[in-house]
Every structure is written in C-alpha cells, then in structure tokens.
C-alpha cells in the first residue's frame, strides 16, 4: 500500500502570436520551437509509456491561447514550412560535419528527429497535436486543465470583476470546444490567486486550481496538512499547493538537475555559432542571428570551452536523476505520512517548456521517472488532482492567501516601473467592455461581430505575458506594441459601437489578424 501520491503538473503556455499580415514573423518561432522540442517529445513519451503498459498519471495545462494556436491552420502550415527549413539545414549539417564524427553523429540525430517530428505532425496527427493530448486524456492517463483565457494575471484585475469572469468563462468554453467536456481544473496564470477568484471558477464548473506554497501555508484558518492536502475555498473549489522540494530539484539554477555537465548546452546553437553566409537562410530574414534548435555541445562545466554533446552519457544522467527524484519522493512521502497520519499529495508543477526546450533531456527524465515509479517501488503513486479529490472528498475549508509563483511570490513582476503604465488602460477598457455588454444584451449581425471582437482585443491586451516581457527586458518593443495595438483596436471598436458607425472593412481586417477564440461570446463579460 502506498504512503502518498505524486502529482506532476506541466503548465504549457505561449502568448497568442500570429501575424498573417507578415510572411515571416520571428516571435511565431516560440510556438514552432515548443512543438519540436517540448510538445511532440512529450507526446512520444506518453505514447511509449502506453505502448509498454506503464500506468502513469500526469496533469497538463494547455492554455486557451496555446490551444487556439495549435488548432490554427495558418500556424500549422507555417510550422511545416519551418520544419522543412530545419530539415534542409540538418541535411547540410550532415554533409558539413563529415570529417568530425562527434558532430556528424549529432547532425544525423537531429536530421532523423526532425524527419520523425514531421511525420508525427503531419501523418499521425494531421497537423493538430491537440488530438494527441485529447486521446491521452480519454485514456485516463493525462488530465488536461485549462487556464484563464489569455493568461491574464488575475490579482491585478481585482477591480475588474467582469473581466475576471470573462477570462475564466472564455477559457472554460475554449477547453470544452477542444476537449469535448468541461474542464475540471484550472491553472490560474502565474498561479495568481486572490481571495474571491474561486467564485468565478465555481460558476464555470471548475473543481480545483493550484497556488504556490505560501498561498496554502498562509491560508486562514491555518491548514492542518500544509501543502500536502488540498483545501476547499468557501466556494467549494479545491486549492492544491506546490511542494517546494520537488520544485527545487528541477528548477533551481544551482541545485537543479538541468545544470548537469553532461546535459545539452542551451546557449550554443549553430544559429549563433556558424559562419554568417552559411547560416543566413536559417535565421531571421533581417540577418538577426537566432536559435535554430541544432546544438552540438554539452554544458561541460563552468567554462567557456564546451565539449561535444554525448547523447548516451546524457541519457544515463537522465535515468539516474529520475531515480534520485523518485527516491526523494519516497522518503518525503514516508516522512509526511508519519506526521500527517494520512497520505500526502505532493504537487510538483513546472513550466512545460522547461522539459525539452530548455532542459533537452527533460522528456527523457519524465519517461524514466514514470517507468521507475511503475516498476521499482510502491511508496508513491502518481495521481491526478481529479482522482485525488474523488478518493479524498473530505478536506479542510480555508481561504488561501493572495499569492503567485512569480518573483518574490506576489505581484511585483507584473507591477513594476517597467510595466505599471498599462493598468490604467486595461482597467478602463474593461470598464468600457462592461458598459458595452450591458448596453447591448442581445446584439446580432455586425454589432455582434464588433462586440465579440472588442472582447477578443480586451482579452489579448490582458495577457500577462506583455507585462512579463516588459519587466524581463527581452523583446520589450514587441510587448509594448501588442499592448497598445489591442487597447487601440478595442478603443476604436468601443467608439464605433457607441456612435453606431461600425466600419465593416476595418472590423474584418482585425478579425482576420486577431482571430483568437472564434467561438467567443461577448456576453461572457457580464
């Protein structure tokens, strides 16, 4: 009999980036890289476990904005184009590295992986990999949870309750469209919770969500079992808390597994390393060097000098890290069981893109972990939150503390000198959206289209990613531009609707550009 449960949660999210008005748009690569390096490798891991009869449980968010991109025909076709270019580069690389066996083997590895990826994407899943995840869910191995529609950071939206409702409702509806049933769980963007958010979750039929460790530890009344059992909010929605130890082992820059010297070095990519004339067709059209995904080195050490990557050594390390992770969870479960006199649930959430994109061996680590959990021990059992709640329906009632899993645990990353200027515009737009939705409760025809588009623009502006990027300082201009574009488009729609002169040509143009959530109903904002 087991002593506790382990719930691995992967949060996959990308902001909605889709620019039909350009032939080539650098930021769209975020999606293409994630498909090649994370989503398809995870699909391969799950398929392998199922084929080999390994019983496993994993929970994944696929955010509504990511779902919408994965289901979008334009982006699907562009991904194939992207992949074809990559295959062409890998073919050249196989030739170019002929006299250097260590690199030649790697070039061959990439060549075969990219071709395999192409086959899986086109032949197996007919360009829509959501099908794969849906199948895993239907088999009971994977629990897919939703997220608020555009990953808006809810604690900074507290003064706009209708927008909070719309974020949750639109997200849940999008989930239903893609996965054929209502979502049971939700990942609140950046784990951003404030007391009261749970009411909107309940209204959307959602049963559970996640908060960071201190969200539970600082709940009131004091939660008897800490983060090792969920608590029910007064609304009846359950909150699961993040376990710190299991997070640290993977996340930590110093102590974490991904820093092992045998793992692949993220920062040495042929997009940066190779001769400009040669690599030019495979980087940005304006000649800006960027990652291609072909990387030949291992981390090697705290040094500039990098040695070629050795896939066999890396595989060995991934297996031994999986063993170490499992061992630690077993001891942890025993220790907790001793204190709690009941089975703890250890919740270990990560950004999905950590696995594969950043930590190249991450999917392999998960593969080994689930195999070991299945064959080598009986102390911890993988579980999904839904299963846990079905088996443990009685839990303490308490109100989690406002919190996030961002830097310093609250709102600082999204409310800072670099991005605080956006909120007056976001709040005003939300107020105006409420006014519109209240004024036109039963719109149809052109007016309805304009109202639906207004809500799309508002939701896109609310995406927490823009504030996040402004603070992080990576592609700030793009984030500023996106925020302004959506607010301006919203504002024009608002004014056009109010003055009863909707410009259909312009509306069609922005419907074509910002086509997220085709199924949207503006009345979600009431």
């Amino acid at each position, binding site marked *: 009999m087991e002593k506790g449960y382990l719930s691995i949660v992967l949060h996959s999210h990308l902001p909605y980036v889709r620019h039909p008005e350009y032939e080539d748009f650098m930021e769209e690569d975020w999606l293409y890289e994630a498909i090649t390096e994370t989503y398809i490798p995870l699909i391969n891991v799950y398929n392998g476990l199922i084929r080999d009869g390994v019983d496993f449980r994993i929970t994944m968010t696929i955010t509504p904005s990511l779902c919408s991109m994965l289901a979008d025909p334009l982006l699907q076709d562009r991904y194939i184009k992207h992949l074809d270019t990559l295959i062409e580069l890998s073919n050249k690389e196989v030739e170019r590295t002929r006299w250097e066996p260590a690199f030649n083997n790697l070039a061959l590895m990439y060549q075969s992986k990219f071709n395999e990826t192409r086959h899986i994407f086109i032949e197996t899943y007919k360009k829509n990999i959501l099908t794969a995840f849906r199948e895993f869910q239907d088999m009971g191995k994977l629990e897919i949870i939703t997220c608020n529609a555009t990953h808006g950071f809810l604690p900074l939206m507290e003064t706009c309750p209708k927008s909070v409702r719309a974020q949750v409702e639109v997200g849940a509806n999008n989930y239903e469209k893609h996965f054929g049933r209502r979502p049971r769980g939700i990942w609140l963007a950046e784990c951003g919770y404030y007391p009261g958010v749970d009411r909107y979750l309940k209204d959307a039929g959602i049963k559970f969500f996640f908060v960071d460790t201190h969200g539970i530890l600082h709940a009131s009344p004091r939660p008897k079992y800490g983060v090792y059992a969920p608590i029910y909010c007064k609304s009846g929605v359950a909150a699961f808390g993040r376990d710190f130890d299991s997070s640290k082992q993977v996340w930590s820059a110093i102590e974490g597994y991904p820093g092992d010297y045998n793992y692949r070095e993220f920062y040495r990519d042929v997009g940066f390393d190779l001769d400009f004339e040669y690599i030019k067709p495979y980087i940005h059209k304006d000649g800006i060097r960027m990652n291609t995904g072909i990387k030949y080195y291992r981390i090697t050490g705290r040094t500039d000098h990098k040695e070629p990557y050795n896939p066999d050594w890396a595989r060995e390390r991934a297996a031994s890290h999986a063993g170490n992770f499992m061992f630690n969870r077993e001891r942890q479960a025993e220790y907790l069981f001793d204190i709690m006199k009941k089975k703890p649930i250890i919740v270990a959430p990560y950004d999905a893109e950590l696995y594969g994109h950043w930590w190249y061996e991450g999917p392999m680590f998960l593969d080994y972990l689930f195999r070991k959990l299945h064959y080598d021990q009986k102390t911890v059992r993988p579980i999904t939150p839904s299963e846990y709640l079905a088996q443990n329906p009685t839990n303490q009632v308490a109100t989690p503390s406002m919190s996030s899993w961002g830097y310093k645990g609250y*709102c600082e990353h999204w409310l800072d000198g670099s991005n605080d200027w956006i909120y007056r515009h976001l709040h005003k737009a939300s107020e105006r959206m409420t006014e519109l939705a209240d004024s036109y409760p039963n719109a149809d025809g052109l007016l309805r289209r304009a109202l639906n588009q207004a809500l799309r623009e508002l939701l896109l502006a609310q995406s927490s990613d823009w504030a996040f990027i402004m603070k992080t300082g990576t592609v700030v201009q793009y984030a500023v531009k996106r925020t302004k574009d959506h607010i301006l488009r919203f504002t024009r729609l608002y004014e056009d609707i109010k003055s009863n002169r909707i410009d259909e040509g312009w509306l069609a*143009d922005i419907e074509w550009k910002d086509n997220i959530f085709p199924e949207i109903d503006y009345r979600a904002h009431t």
Partner: protein
Amino acid sequence: MRRKIKQAGKAGAKAPRKKPVKKAVPKRRRVKAAARRAVRKVRRPKAVPELMGTGAVVEAQRHKAEEAKYYPRPSAYMPPRQWEREELPSSYGDTRIVLMTRDSHWIFAYWEITDARRMDIEREAHAGWDGLRKVLRVYDVTDIEFNGTNAHKHFDIDITPEAGNWYIRVGEANRSWCVDLGVITPDGKFIVIARSNVVGTPRDTASDVIDEEWMSIEEDFLKLYGLWGGFAGASPGKAQIRKILKERLEKELSSGAVSSFVRPAKYRGFWMVVNTELVLYGATEPDASVTVQGRPIKLNRDGTFSLRFALPDGEQVIPVKGVSADKEEERTITPIVKKYTK
C-alpha cells in the same frame, strides 16, 4: 505603532520624482493655461511615458524602422485618417484613484484628475493649484466599512505635482487599505479629490486562526511549514520561519524562467572561438555523375557544385571523381588539405 507607520510612509516615496516646472503666473492666466492644456490634450494625445513615469520611456525611443516592422504591409484595406494615431490617450477624462496590491508590504496607486475637478478644488481651497500640497492619505480600514472618518489609523504621503502613480510602502501585511487623493490647503484643511477602492495586503506568515475540527499540534504544523525552508526533520521557530519565507520567495524558482519567449540572459566574460571550413567547388558536364570521397553529390543545373566542410586538424584527402553520362569518360582530382592549429 504610529511612529512606525510614519516611517513607512516616508519610505514609500518611490515613484519617479520630476522637478516641478513652475512659473510665477497670475491666477487668471493659470486657469487659461490649464484650459489650453486641456484643449491640446484632446487634439494631440501625448505619448504615454510623460504621464506614466519610467515604464514606457523605452517606447518613446522606439526606432522608426522597428515600428515599420510591426505594421501591416499595404493591404486592400486603408484605415480612415483619424485613426492613424498610435499612442494611447494620456487621460480618459475621469477623476479617480485606483489601488492595486503589489505584495505584503506595498500597494500601488494610479490616478487621474480632470481640469474641471482641479478648478473646483482651487475654488474650494481658495488657493491656486500650484500652491496646494498634494497628498495621498493612506487609511487602515481593516475589517470596517470605511466612511471617511472611522479608519484605524492613517498617514500622509506628499506627492510631486506631476506624479500620476505612486508605490506606497504600507509596511503591514494582512490589513486593508484605502487611499484618498487630496490636497492640503495653506490653513491645513484636507480636501479629498478622489477616494480609492479598498485593497488588502496578503498575510506574510501562517494564520493564527485555528479551526477546531482541523487542529494539529503546533510542532507538526511547523514541521510541514519548515519543509518549505529545507528544514526536513526539524520544526523551526517563528523567527526562523520569517527568514525562510523571505529566502524562499526570492529564490529563482519562479515561473517563466525558461519559456522560449523569455530566454534567460547568460553571462559570459571575454571569449573567442576560431573555426575553419573548407569550400570545395568545381564544375563538369551537367549530366555527369560526381562523387566526393566516394559519396555521390548532386550537381547544380549548370554542372557546377559546391561543398562545405568543417575542417578539423589533420590531413584530409578528398578524391573528387567525375564520370560522364555515357560512362565512357572518367576523371579524378584529389586535393589534399592539411590543417593544424597552434
């Protein structure tokens, strides 16, 4: 307690302080100037940064070329002229102050005052706008229905005339706050311009409220709490817990650290890499077949070919063999390349 709060108030001055540009003008002209300003605002909305402070400065410096990149290439649709504006409005014609929570000890306020409201205040205060002290009066309204006079306590923060937002260090977790934006007249009267919404600062330690049905031994709870700080096996004291908390929240275990759109910057000191490649090129009859080191290669339409190899140290013998289409003729040329690095 009271002294502590005052200190907190002082520390709260974090918003960018700009030097007020003041000119001694008679009151009548000032009003006119204000009216002119208002008109100008409506016609030509200012760039966001001027109002919002540090955040959007970047945007003001945006390069034209960059800008062009994000704009659609000419399409069938041309937007009407009046909508060619690309800046957000600097104001929305409201008088309001909005509070947001940043963390357990800080809140944030932004506000906007209409010119009409400004003039009302001047009339009420019998003084010109520039001569009035602008303050944020921060009230502790924990667990009460605030009516303007029943706060547990309050403190004032002097704000600069141009400020449109402020970070306020309230310094106390698990309390509720409300802020009046107002002026203090020369004779000491406080006039409210706008009152904010109420926000709470989240708890920064475990709750003292215990549910009898879910009681546990204090030591056991502290053990569970201590795990957060890596204190497995021991139950830390309360003082330690505060320390853990601070350390844990500042650890880089937060989200987004690895997503492709926020790739962490990597520090590298001085470095240098040198590599060599060899370009091997040639031409033959377009329908001939050619092998390089025994491997067939594809010719360009005109019979030319070009290959590129990473060139390691050592000697490379590269036989290039061409065979005519009718297999009647054959030629082999063998370059030998030696490379060494010192």
